[in-house]
């Protein structure tokens, strides 16, 4: 499948893509309200909560109270089990809500009861209904206590098993965005805004046709199987030097650890959007800078023109790092042991083992609309062989793919000698502790 082919076949169908945004729990509701405030046409927004009081305060028209008979509308009391039970009770209703959607975004704050418990159930239901489920979740602040963090981690594992992709924002990182005087309200508004931006950015990236196109399959290739470490950032700049500035802003973003996350990322999705005045040179400049930061990453880029942007240039970036399997696997195993996995999740349970991946998209495409099938096929392709093949089939990207395949040489640890145990000195993604002559490839007699 070449990129032009994707354009011609999928583009007409794109307009009919039905996207639903769900906010689950208190935090999810706030995020969705935030998205609503930011003005975000063409999608249906639905708020789910177990707490009827919180639901009543929400300004959105579509709301649904989960587990009314179970909890009496009093919330889940911070217990994910009750959140999950409430969602399972209303599973039929959830199924109804998800029916007909091609893509479902789920926003939730992990650590509490409803978001952590009900969110993964919704993700599973959405997938069973044939929609592609993408979750945007927050992890609690460190100060919220170890228990909440533990619950959140378990919830995240469940999300990873249930949804197609999970993008995670650890709230603790938001601390770097705020200063001493920021109030609590502002802080939470900031995290909500970040998530809202994330949803919006991804939505635009997938729905807007661009001259270098990106679709959901591209997105999946980046977030799938790496999701615990997916981070997200976007930046915007105006003026004659916007290409340079936008990259600087992007790298200064604390969510990317000041650009360090890029150096460690092994898959990267970059979407550029600008007004009609966007030049190829600018696209080139931005990509050049980003490429330099992450030489080893599997990079997918897209560029689109949006009339409304005027002379602004925005860059949206999703970076994923493969989780250290040693740390993640036992945790995942714990989850499976702790509670019996829901029947329909059987296929995706193998996810962490890296096998049986083909089963997933096939099951989905059976239920999916014809328009979606194209996308699903692309996913299936990539699933069958591994991470990179979506790119491999596109001629103009094959150069980048070659980069992606090279693993980092084990040489590095040998050559940093006495600096092995200290923080590496990195500059533009290059480890300066490695002898210069080695990096420059100077032969010695």
């Amino acid at each position, binding site marked *: 499948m070449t990129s032009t082919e994707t354009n011609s076949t999928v583009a007409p169908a794109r307009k009919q893509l039905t996207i639903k945004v769900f906010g689950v729990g208190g935090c999810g509701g706030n995020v969705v309200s935030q998205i609503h405030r930011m003005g975000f046409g063409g999608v249906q927004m639905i708020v789910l909560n177990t707490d009827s009081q919180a639901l009543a305060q929400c300004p959105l028209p579509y709301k649904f109270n989960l587990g009314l008979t179970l909890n009496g509308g009093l919330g889940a009391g911070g217990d994910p089990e009750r959140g999950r039970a409430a969602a399972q009770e209303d599973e039929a209703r959830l199924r109804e809500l998800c029916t007909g959607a091609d893509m479902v975004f789920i926003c939730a704050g992990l650590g509490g009861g409803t978001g952590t418990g009900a969110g993964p159930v919704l993700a599973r239901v959405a997938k069973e209904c044939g929609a592609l489920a993408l979750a945007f979740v927050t992890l609690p602040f460190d100060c919220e206590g170890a228990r909440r963090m533990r619950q959140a981690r378990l919830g995240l594992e469940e999300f990873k098993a249930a949804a197609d992709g999970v993008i995670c924002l650890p709230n603790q990182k938001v601390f*770097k965005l705020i200063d001493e005087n920021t109030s609590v309200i502002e802080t939470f508004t900031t995290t909500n805004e970040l998530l809202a931006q994330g949803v919006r950015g991804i939505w635009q990236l997938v729905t807007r046709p661009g001259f270098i196109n990106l679709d959901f399959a591209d997105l999946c290739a980046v977030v799938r199987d790496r999701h615990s470490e997916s981070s997200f950032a976007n930046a915007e700049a105006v003026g004659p030097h916007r290409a340079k500035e936008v990259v600087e802003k992007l790298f200064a973003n*604390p969510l990317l650890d000041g650009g360090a996350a890029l150096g460690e990322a092994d898959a990267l999705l970059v979407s550029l959007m600008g007004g009609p005045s966007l030049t190829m040179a600018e696209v080139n400049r931005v990509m050049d800078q980003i490429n330099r930061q992450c030489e080893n990453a599997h990079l997918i880029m897209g560029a689109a023109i949006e009339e409304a942007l005027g002379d602004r240039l925005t860059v949206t970036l999703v970076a994923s790092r493969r989780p250290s399997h040693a740390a993640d696997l036992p945790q995942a195993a714990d989850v499976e042991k702790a509670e019996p996995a829901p029947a329909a999740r059987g296929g995706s349970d193998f996810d962490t083992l890296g096998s049986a991946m083909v089963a997933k998209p096939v099951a989905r495409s059976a239920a999916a609309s014809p328009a979606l099938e194209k996308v699903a096929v692309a996913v299936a392709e990539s699933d069958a062989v591994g991470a990179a093949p979506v790119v491999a089939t596109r001629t103009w990207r094959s150069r980048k793919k070659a980069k992606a395949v090279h693993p980092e040489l084990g040489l590095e640890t040998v050559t940093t000698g006495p600096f092995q145990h200290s923080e590496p000195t990195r*500059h533009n993604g290059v480890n300066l502790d490695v*002898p*210069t*002559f080695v990096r420059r490839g100077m032969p*010695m007699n």
Partner: protein
Amino acid sequence: MLNLFFPKKTTVIVGLEIGTAKVAAVVGEVTDGGGVNVIGIGQCPSRGVRKGEVVNAEHAAEDVRNAIVEAEKSADVEIASVYLGVTGGHLTSLNTHGVFTSVSLDHEISQQDVNEVLANAKVFNRPSENYVLHSVRQHFTVNGQAGIVDPIGMLGENLEVDMHVIHGVTTRLQNHMRVVAGLNLEVEQTVFSGLCSALALLDNEQKHIGALVVDIGAGTTEYVIYAEGVIKHTGVIAVGGDHVTNDLSYGLRMAPARAALLMREHGAATLDGVADQTLTLTSENGFPDRRVDLHDLRRIMVARLEETFQLIDSEIGELGFHDQLRAGVCLCGGGARIRGIEKLAENVFGLPATLGRANAVGGLRSASDDPELATAVGLVKYGAMRQKGNQSTGLVGKIKGFAGSLGLF
């Protein structure tokens, strides 16, 4: 013994640098004329520091004690407090801008307006775990008229100020202070090492016509750009002499200690006249051991040093400072002892380069001649400047200065 009862705390200024290669303490006194005389030096090889940051507090404390004791003996004073130099790859610097619109009826800018605009400039987005080490004012702009040093008494409403701010991770800065505090020494202030080196090396004229100071230490390389009499830019790269040694030890396959020795004896930052020359190394027993290609040795060194300079060069190039550095490049630190380094710097920067001498102080010649002591000497100079400022501003100013140094305002 007299010193015990009448510690000359007000006039004796001690600069302490806990470096990667050595700990240096320099004792200076302020003369009646306002100059600074170095009266004592204490040094000790450092073991507890890597890349400019303390990694083993116990070793570091021992080394600091040795250096301080030596300095006390050499200057015959009791040391109670020090100015402490800090560095490290975690330090970040940036230029900030503050704006304030005065509302006074007579349009005359008062001290209060200046305080307001300075406070505004200090508000910027930094990670919450970071501590502001320095905020140095550059120039004021009054109603669009730029380049004003002291706006008090001028007429105008729109007051703007440019500032240079250096900040770093609080906990990593505190490691240095903990070591010193553990020895019952008071830390008067922590100062960025690069800034001190620049103070020691540059005179007023050089600061005005623009100069770049590069301090090549063992663990880190600091650089400071002065132009128009103010600090324009600072930075740290956590690459230094240790990296050169490590490169050699890896490339020539020998122990780091031997590589360091070889670098001191045969190292240079030039490739001239070494083609096809070999060195015969002798083993510990005095027998000929193995041969090393001198050309390889020099190439490894040149590659590393050249790269370090290039990193700095591209940084100042991006910021557009090249045209402002008319006094050229001043080198100091242990790396400045490498033969031919000024030629290499000249080639990379395209500017005249010299080995800096600490001309700013008098007293012991060895202090001002030694490029490795530039930071410690600069600390003394910094301390002298601060004390002078404090005396003229009186008690209120002192409190303000203290609070300011803590980052309260």
